């Protein structure tokens, strides 16, 4: 027997949101409700995009903190 339960959808940042359209966002079978935090890692400085040549020859703008 299929266990069907519409639970919720989650926004891209992982927070639960009300279900606006059950047909488009469905959850069949209840996934474990065990949230975690995925801290976003810093990889590059949030500056203006670098050009390819600049990135190639001078590196993508150096250290960027934590």
């Amino acid at each position, binding site marked *: *027997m*299929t*266990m*069907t339960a519409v639970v919720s*959808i*989650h926004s*891209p*940042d*992982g927070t*639960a949101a009300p279900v*606006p*359209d059950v047909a*488009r*966002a*469905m*959850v*069949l*079978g*209840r*996934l*474990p*409700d*065990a*949230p*975690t*935090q*995925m*801290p*976003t*890692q*810093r*990889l*590059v400085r*949030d*500056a*203006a*995009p*670098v050009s*390819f040549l600049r*990135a*190639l020859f001078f*590196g*993508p*703008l*150096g*250290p*960027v*903190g934590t």
Partner: protein
Amino acid sequence: MSATAPRIQVKAPRRVRLVRAVAVALSLTTGGGAAAIFVQYSAVNGLTPLGLVSAVFLFFSTTWLAWGACLGVVGLKPFHLRRPFTHLPPNGRTVVLVPVFNEDPQVTFARVAAMYLSVNKATALPVHFAILSDTRDAAIAKAEDLWFARLLDETGGAGRIFYRRRAQNTGRKAGNIEDFFARSGAAYDFALILDADSLMEGDTIVEMIRRMEADPDLGLLQSLPAVVRAQSVFGRVMQFAAAFFSPVFSRGLARMQGHTGPFWGHNAMVRVPAFVASCGLPVLSGPPPFGGHILSHDYVEAALLARAGWKVRLDTDLKGSYEEGPESIVEHAKRDRRWCQGNLQHLRIIAAPGLRKWSRFVFLQGVFSYIAPVLWAGFLITVVTDRVTAPPPDYFPDPHQFFPVFPSDETAKAIGLAIGIFGLLIMPKLLTATEAIVTRRTRQFGGTFNALLSVLADFILLSIMAPVLMAYQTRSVFQVLMGRDGGWPPNRRGGATLTVAEAWEASRFIVFSGVVGLVVAHFLTVHIILWVLPVLVPMIFSPLIISWTSRLVAPSSHRARLFTTPEEIHTPPILALHDEILARWEKIARTPEAGADTPGLMEPARA
């Protein structure tokens, strides 16, 4: 729950660092040597700026070739088998993640059914499966719903097999997995990340859990998936090459990586707390292709795990891990376009703080793997242009001399250089073939004669296809540099023969480039035409090559036996089980009660 921080900051062992240093030095020396010989050859008629540019192109291209050869040589010696680590039953809470995006749910969910049954046979540990759908096509989404019900009925897996579909596929596959971890990650110690076309034996999954448990500092364990079920000429050539050559090159990679191994995005197990703490990917500033979401997220995640002090390991001795590959040059080129963009995007993060040196080097390797064909193309173009624009030889440099001065004949150097470069191309394959004979690995490929014949045919076919693949890669690189985002088109799985007309549509720019090259060579530098014909002729005939290599090969035909792989001789249990389930489901889909709307009758997802 496993610890969220590794106990040690892993450093590459001394032996690994020595192997890396020797390989880098050898590659640079080989590249430098090739460039020096070329300069000597070119200097006979006076070295021009274009000649110098050609030498630079040749230096980088040959260095890259030599690096590949070094990987092959380092990987020649087989590993001692690691398994079994322990016979103790595993107890880590594990979930198998199957991200899907507009795939055929009948085939994909049958894979999940097979793996679920296989893992339950292998262990009493309750292993969960989560199908993470990013499907955007409403009809396919409906079919996923129905086939999921069939999957639960078939396996009795309610409560252990889950399905969810996101309303928006933000962040593509990486975002899909991140979404799962954000809501359910704390429930698991380990997650086996698969692709929609992945298959893995239950025993292999259990063995991977054991290995993760045996080393608490191991953040990610990558298996080496074998390519299976290829049906076309192209698919079978690539499948054979992956089965015959990849283990050697991957061992070479594994010996050089130390604790900073690769992640190829699938058929790998991650330690969930480590992954969650280390691998939250940022959205890069600016628009695609260099900004936006990170496209080739797997390499970045491996680098981030290593940055946080976790080991990332490739275990080439793990068997029972499978994937499917593209069946035509065009499908290969489409996937390659995405990988090209992803790898070039890594230029943005190659200098990110705290990364291990090897991680940066891996990013650089990825970039090189895509610009290498451009460098070869640049070498060919500058050499031809240099010859066209070169002044005629001056036989009387002194106006008062009586006898002409002939330039010294350096043809021998040019031929020696060509043979050397050809040797770099073919040597790793010859050494691998020797290794396969010595270790009797050839028996898995239909015997020594059949294996060697396949190696020869592989070399010939790849030589014919190489200029076509080079043209696609070159176009991809220029598209990315011009800022064109290739997006993430769905994969077209399974065999699909392309007609010559379809192939022409996909390759007319290659034909045009080849014809222009031939005309230029014929009218301007006819004496070097023989040197460029091996490149230009396949380009001109690329529609025929693409169409012919996409043709399906009957499993019983002589040509099918040519590229025999171990999985074709002995069908792995998981493949047999998948076939069995799929056959049963296809019967269900064809029953009159199922009706015309039955999703089993649906065509596979098309790009």
